[in-house]
């Protein structure tokens, strides 16, 4: 009886293993193609730029002479913008995520909001630039000399480069407020905040969702209120995921050029910003500027050097994110 059934299995071992081997090779090739291109790019950059990675690159501002040009203001500008963006997007992103995951009722309205947040994450960054310009940079022209608001409230607005309203909050000297924000670091940071906010919300929600429901049940069972459950158990457990999400979003944002160009980040900034109201520039814009200049030293070498520095900072960001995740991760 056994033999009858055995012969129905034409196992075809040799062919099956051969097909497997071929697919293994194909998949490996796919990986190698990508890796090779990346390696080629980095080698190319290193060859062209390594000689120009010298202290001057970090201590000098941009100059017309390539030997004296550096990206000091760009590096500092990028770091400050990223810091401010992180500062703004952290509470807004987490707050929205906590509300959507823990408090909002699961009805059509919440679904509608969720779909829109997902869509916003895919909007081209240049649109955020235009949004930022209108809302933060110019504030719809509400503070120009001929706006209805100025006329209504008889506000004293400056003209020209100092256009807009300027006053001190509560009379405190360092709590200066400039309205609108013009082309300041503040405006740039707020624009970038809008840009990464949808992604931060989405990744924070994922982190919150990944907290097992059994934890919430246990906490409720002990007589904790909803806020206590959320603040003392859910959010702390989700925090590694949330922080990693923000750092990864920031490392994406650090390379965004278009929105900041529209916001008015300048290409020639020969000073370090002293306050959030000052003008600024960022690394991608500086690099772009160098690429457009005719001299080879700018176009090829300094640009390559700038890209290498930029990549190094980017990789550092990512490394921090990975390390933090590993260190804070909970082993269930």
């Amino acid at each position: 009886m056994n033999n009858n059934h055995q012969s129905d299995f034409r196992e075809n071992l040799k062919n099956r293993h051969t097909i497997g081997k071929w697919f293994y090779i194909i998949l490996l090739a796919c990986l190698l193609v990508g890796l090779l291109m990346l390696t080629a790019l980095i080698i190319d950059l290193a060859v062209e730029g390594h000689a120009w990675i010298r202290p001057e690159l970090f201590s000098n501002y941009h100059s017309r002479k390539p030997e004296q040009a550096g990206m000091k203001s760009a590096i500092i500008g990028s770091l400050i913008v990223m810091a401010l963006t992180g500062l703004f997007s952290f509470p807004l992103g987490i707050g929205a995520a906590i509300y959507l995951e823990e408090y909002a009722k699961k009805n059509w309205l919440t679904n509608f909001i969720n779909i829109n947040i997902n869509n916003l994450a895919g909007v081209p960054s240049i649109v955020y630039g235009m949004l930022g310009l209108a809302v933060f940079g110019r504030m719809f022209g509400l503070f120009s000399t001929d706006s209805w608001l100025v006329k209504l409230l008889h506000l004293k607005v400056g003209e020209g480069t100092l256009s807009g309203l300027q006053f001190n909050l509560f009379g405190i000297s360092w709590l200066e407020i400039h309205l609108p924000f013009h082309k300041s670091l503040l405006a740039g940071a707020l624009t970038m905040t809008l840009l990464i906010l949808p992604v931060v919300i989405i990744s924070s929600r994922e982190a919150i969702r990944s907290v097992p429901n059994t934890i919430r049940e246990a906490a409720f069972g002990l007589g904790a209120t909803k806020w206590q459950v959320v603040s003392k158990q859910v959010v702390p457990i989700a925090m590694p995921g949330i922080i990693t999400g923000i750092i990864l979003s920031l490392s994406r944002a650090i390379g965004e050029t278009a929105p900041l160009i529209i916001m008015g980040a300048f290409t020639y900034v020969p000073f370090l910003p002293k306050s959030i109201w000052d003008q600024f520039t960022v690394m991608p814009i500086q690099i772009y500027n160098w690429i457009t200049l005719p001299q080879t030293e700018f176009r090829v070498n300094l640009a390559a050097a700038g890209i290498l520095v930029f990549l190094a900072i980017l990789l550092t960001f990512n490394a921090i994110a990975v390390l933090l995740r590993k260190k804070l991760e909970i082993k269930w």
Partner: protein
Amino acid sequence: MKEELSNSTIISAKNLSVSYGSQEAFHGITLDIPRNKIVAIIGPSGCGKSTLIRCFNRMNDLVPSAKVSGDVFYNGQNIYGPNVDAVQVRRQIGMVFQKPNPFPKSIYENISFGAKVNNYQGNMDELVEKSLKQAALWDEVKDDLTKSGLALSGGQQQRLCIARALATEPEVILMDEPASALDPIATLKIEELMQELKEQYTIIIVTHNMQQASRASDLTAFISLDRTRVDDRVGVLVEYDLTEKIFIKPAEKETEDYISGRFG
């Protein structure tokens, strides 16, 4: 049976029914839980046993589609009454779940959490030690209370969860199949623990394990499908009596069939 019950009732369900949306889970359950006894709730799956005990500490409030009708009295007060805060009920009626679920924190923090959120003013170290001792876990962990709760074995984790529930100084402990994820030795430890705990607390345990119910409980309630509702799966209380009676000479044929494994 009457003498057992007149020994003061701590929780009393009166005509309790629960539905999730349009689907009724169980219907018209009335029973009294006497103080300092262990009551086992047995019955086939899907008849609402877990749902029933979740009414006792208002955990069903957390499920948006759940509708509870009828009353539950705790020490004479209706916990579904208008002025009752569910949070307060849950401090006094604690719960241990099927799969051990310690917080991803240290043993100490696991136990102190319940006390902290309820604004405990006393000596926390003493409370932690007392709770761990009552849960028969103190000797095994006393050398390092900073160790993560997740580093313990399954049986230890479940005893940690029991200690955690005890730390809010409840009167009643609800257990939803507490040993179903544990090996036989750990299971027996939990059952022994229940016998010790019943001197101070009242315990209500849902279990699928007939032998556990017969070994460990004083009274047993059998909840099964309502035979008059053929198209639905709705639970009703079929029989509720002393454990010895239920397992040697049950009054209802349905009970007899279920515990002899001749159900269906």
